[in-house]
């Protein structure tokens, strides 16, 4: 092949390959879904001998659960706080549980309505939120356990379970 032809073909081939690379498609689909994320793991503080609490003032860390909703009004969030320990040392006396679930950060200002519209039942352990606006919402869950009548919790490891549900409606 003559040198003159080669000089023409090399730039032409480069242009063709560039064009081919530019045409590689990336496809994706955004579909209705609910994603539950454990944003912050909770931790019980032990401010007094008879109390375990996730609130910051008591030395605990409030667990935070994030929900991502793609389609408005497709799901409701149901969060159930602990009413017993899933693992603990032997506790012969009763444990009194108090808890609350509140709306924390939101990606849309209108999501503050989730808080005013929430439904609480099951002795305040279960809270239901109607997810009427698409976006992300963070729920703060506080849990306090008090042992007996001013009795000290036995030393050991304590674990409690929060259930976060997303129910299509």
């Amino acid at each position, binding site marked *: 092949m003559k040198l003159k032809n080669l000089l023409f073909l090399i730039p032409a081939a480069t242009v063709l390959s560039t064009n081919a690379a530019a045409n590689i498609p990336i496809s994706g689909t955004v*579909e*209705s*879904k*609910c*994603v*539950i*994320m*454990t*944003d912050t*793991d*909770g*931790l*019980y503080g032990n401010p007094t001998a008879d109390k375990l609490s*996730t609130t910051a003032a008591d030395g605990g860390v409030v*667990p935070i*659960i*994030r929900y*991502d909703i793609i*389609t408005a009004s*497709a*799901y409701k969030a149901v969060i159930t706080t*602990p009413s017993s320990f*899933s*693992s603990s040392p032997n506790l012969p006396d009763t444990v009194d549980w108090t808890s609350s679930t509140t709306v924390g950060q939101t990606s849309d200002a209108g999501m503050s309505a989730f808080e005013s519209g929430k439904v609480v039942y099951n002795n305040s352990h279960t809270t239901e939120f109607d997810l009427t606006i698409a976006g*992300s919402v963070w729920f703060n869950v506080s*849990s306090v356990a008090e042992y007996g009548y001013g009795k000290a919790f036995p030393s050991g*490891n*304590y*674990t*409690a*379970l*929060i*259930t*976060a*549900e*997303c*129910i*299509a*409606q």
Partner: protein
Amino acid sequence: MKVFVLVLGLLSGYASAHQFTPTYPELSPSHMTGVYKAEMILFNTRKEIEYYALNVFDKDWAPVRFATENRLVKIDYEERKYVNIYISKKDVKDASYICSKSKILSSVKDTSIVASRICSKIK
């Protein structure tokens, strides 16, 4: 800066998540006569979770009979699994929800653990 915050948010958020889609699955006839199936997708980015339990419920949350390859699905971190739920024709009219729930091993010793459950509603 906004983009950075968004990317950071997405990265941190999806570090530990449970997805179960579609929201509204349809039951279609399977390769077996008299058996319908729904095709579901389970996606796990919860590092501490390796198993999800599958269940089918009616509108009053009573269990409905169903079949699947494994009712307890073993799924690795960042793995996506396609799950077929089979329901017999006589139970189709009762089936309302298909749910997946994270199962926590006793070896997980975090002080507060989150069990996540996502339920899709059958069309």
